[in-house]
């Protein structure tokens, strides 16, 4: 095996001698070369979570439905239509021409199997938590129909079907009664617009356009994903024409690379937002300053979010005033807005009984310049801030121990443009909810169990209004998604910030 590696290296070396640098140019061989810092080790999104894997799943997997980020509508995909039998029973009608990458047809049994497997405890899938929220079981009721029996009303079911659950052949993970959760980790057989041509984990993934794909064929024939951990090396590869697309680029690197004639810097929205969570419930100190609404309002007035967004985040970052991203369904922007007003902040602190401020531990785990700006803003109104910049795990542990008066948190909503994707985890379940507001939690959970969109919106408006009035959070800014792309590549940006490489084409 070692000898084969050496031989391959020698042959490739000889090939490189004869090749010109022009061979790297992507448009000439219709190959889009992509760099990712994260090592790609598992191609099965049913068993992964990170952003890189969401991007790859868009290429390799077709879901029952597709989500349109522009209109926020759920569009047909593997399913042609759906019908609610009652509030907790959903019938889905399947296309008849869907093929797996090995040319075998997709059946209703495959769909039911995929959902039931992910629902089962033995699957230990990263999607199980999502599926078990609503799915009781999936049942084949006709060759082209699957019935989903749900445990409760759940308005996000179609959205989950369009994002989190990947379809697999019946028996994929438990053929012959033997469980193999890594069955699709390397040799992925799915139904998406690209099939896996070759995969060397941690090194390179080659995807080829799948001729048997039932939908519109993507414009680019081949996508090569390389793992390049260093951002400086990624930048150099862009400038030398070795790669055509890279994401998560720091603003300063992107701006510098943009000066190169063959490289364009694109900045688009990202669903991730940043915010301060204030211990209104008094978990860390029952009599602590953060239990007083005027103090929390003062914190909101003290923060210069406009300048943080403009100068520290840059790109497409915007100041926000809601506990959700403005692009998310139900994220009503008409709630109370606290403008930057340090004098008003000082006055509110005095009214709350803290004319000389108070000592405050501010916890943070990322974006140090932003954390320091927040600390400086709070210090300017008289609060004696001790910035505790720690690793995420330490912050999580301290929060679980209910020992945090204020922390700078961020949330990307898993790319889901719905307020439900941020509200539940921060105001209902678990230790992220520092508000101790049962009425608010009730509203959030009620919204999740309301199928009617208008009623859901109304519930979120009420909940977000309460969060703003009570200043449970100090919302800060939306994040920006920065890309470097080859100047001959047309890469459309999505409003939800999820890169869809299947929509890229050469100019």
């Amino acid at each position, binding site marked *: 095996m*070692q000898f084969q*590696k*050496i031989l*391959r*290296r*020698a042959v*490739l*070396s000889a*090939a*490189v001698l004869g090749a010109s*640098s022009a061979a790297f140019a992507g448009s000439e061989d219709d190959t889009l070369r992509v760099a990712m810092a994260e*090592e790609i*080790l*598992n191609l099965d999104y049913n068993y992964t*979570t*990170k*952003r890189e894997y969401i991007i790859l799943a868009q290429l390799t997997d077709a879901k029952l439905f597709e989500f349109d980020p522009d209109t926020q509508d759920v569009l047909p995909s593997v399913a042609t239509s759906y019908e609610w039998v009652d509030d907790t029973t959903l019938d889905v009608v399947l296309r008849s021409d869907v093929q797996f990458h090995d040319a075998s047809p997709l059946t209703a049994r495959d769909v039911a199997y995929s959902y039931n497997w992910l629902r089962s405890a033995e699957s*230990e899938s*990263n999607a*199980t*938590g999502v599926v078990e929220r609503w799915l009781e079981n999936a049942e084949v009721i006709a060759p082209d129909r699957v019935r989903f029996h749900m445990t409760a009303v759940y308005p996000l079911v179609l959205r989950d079907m369009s994002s989190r659950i990947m379809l697999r052949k019946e028996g994929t993970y438990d053929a012959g009664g033997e469980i193999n959760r*890594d069955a699709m*980790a390397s040799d992925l057989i799915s139904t998406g617009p690209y099939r896996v041509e070759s995969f060397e*984990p*941690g*090194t390179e993934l080659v995807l080829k356009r799948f001729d048997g794909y039932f939908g519109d064929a993507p414009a680019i024939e081949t996508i090569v994903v*390389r*793992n*390049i*951990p*260093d951002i*400086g*090396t990624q930048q*150099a*590869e862009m*400038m*030398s024409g*070795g790669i055509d697309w890279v994401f998560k680029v720091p603003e300063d690197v992107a701006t510098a690379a943009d000066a190169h004639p063959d490289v364009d810097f694109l900045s688009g929205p990202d669903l991730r937002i940043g915010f301060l969570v204030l211990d209104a419930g008094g978990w860390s100190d029952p009599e602590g300053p953060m239990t007083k609404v005027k103090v929390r309002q003062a914190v909101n007035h003290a923060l210069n979010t406009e300048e943080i967004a403009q100068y520290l985040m840059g790109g497409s970052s915007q100041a926000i005033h809601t506990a959700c991203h403005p692009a998310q369904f139900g994220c009503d922007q008409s709630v109370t807005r606290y403008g930057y007003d340090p004098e008003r902040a000082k006055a509110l602190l005095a009214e709350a009984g803290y004319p000389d401020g108070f000592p405050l531990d501010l916890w943070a785990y*990322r974006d140090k310049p932003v954390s320091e700006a927040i600390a400086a803003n709070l210090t300017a109104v008289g609060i004696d801030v001790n910035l505790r910049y720690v*690793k*995420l*795990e330490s912050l*999580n*542990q301290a929060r679980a121990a209910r020992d945090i008066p204020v922390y700078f948190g*961020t*949330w*990307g*909503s*898993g790319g889901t443009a719905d307020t439900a994707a941020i509200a539940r*985890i921060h105001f209902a*379940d*678990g*230790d992220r909810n520092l508000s101790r507001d049962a009425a608010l939690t009730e509203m959030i959970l009620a919204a999740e169990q309301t199928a009617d969109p208008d009623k859901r919106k109304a519930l979120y408006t009420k909940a977000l209004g309460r969060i703003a009035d009570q200043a449970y959070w100090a919302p800060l800014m939306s994040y920006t998604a920065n890309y470097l792309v080859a100047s001959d590549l047309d890469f459309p940006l999505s409003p939800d910030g999820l890169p869809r490489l299947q929509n890229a084409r050469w100019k």
Partner: protein
Amino acid sequence: MLKYIALKGLLAILVAFTASLAAFLLLNVASDPAQAIAGEDATPDVVETIRIRYGLDRPVYERYLSWLAGVATGDFGESYYWHKPVAELVADRADETLTLALSALFVTILIAVPLGALAGLNPNSWIDRAALGVAVSAQAIPNFWLGLIMIILFAVMIPIFPVSGDNTWYHFVLPAIVLGASSVPAVMRLTRTGLIEVMGADYIRTARAKGFRGNALLRRHALRNAILPVISVLAVQLGQKFGGSVITESIFAINGLGRLALESILGADIPTVQMLIFVFAIVFVAMNLLADILNAALDPRIRIG
């Protein structure tokens, strides 16, 4: 001699176990492996699922003892990320690091020995000072900076080498220069000192009396003896190249053990980190042992054991 080798071998194993215990404790104290695997936005139920799946809900001491028990049977565990035995993972990646380390050593010899010879033949001259300046500069420049400068110069501005990757021999040229540069001063100074010493020896005077001059004297008599201590130092340097490959492999996207170590530490992939520390420690001690044996073999006056 055999007793000495056995003692050194035992020492290597002790060093490896001590280092692995320290790494195990530090990784568990400094990070939550389940959270690291799940990612920043993972919900608590996903983190908990991962914690249970990998047995991370068990006490730290229990997990370490279970790892030790595995090692005793030759099982170093399975990577949390790669889902395959770490021994297999390390074996897959070893040849990239070995190629890089040997290439770097070659670069070191190519630069350091001629520089050392020049300096040794002209002690305390401007040539000596210049050679020392070059060598010390090579060591003083940080790897990550030198790597990026080499990429900009020889892969972007003058595109004669690839920017990154490890598919061909050409991919190893720039990384080898970067990794090899840091060892230049040690080898260069040793060559210089050895040569100064040898050039004053009686047998050189004899050789001169026999009519040997210039290159012939240098190659056939002086350098051959002056270089003896360098050979044992090179063995130590090779061990250091293994451990020092972390930054170089990351910059040049080489899929070797160094990059694997970095990714595993960042991702709290404890079984992989444990195995790598084990391997690095043993390689390092083994190279030191090799240096001792080479010294003894090359210089009969030295006895070990």
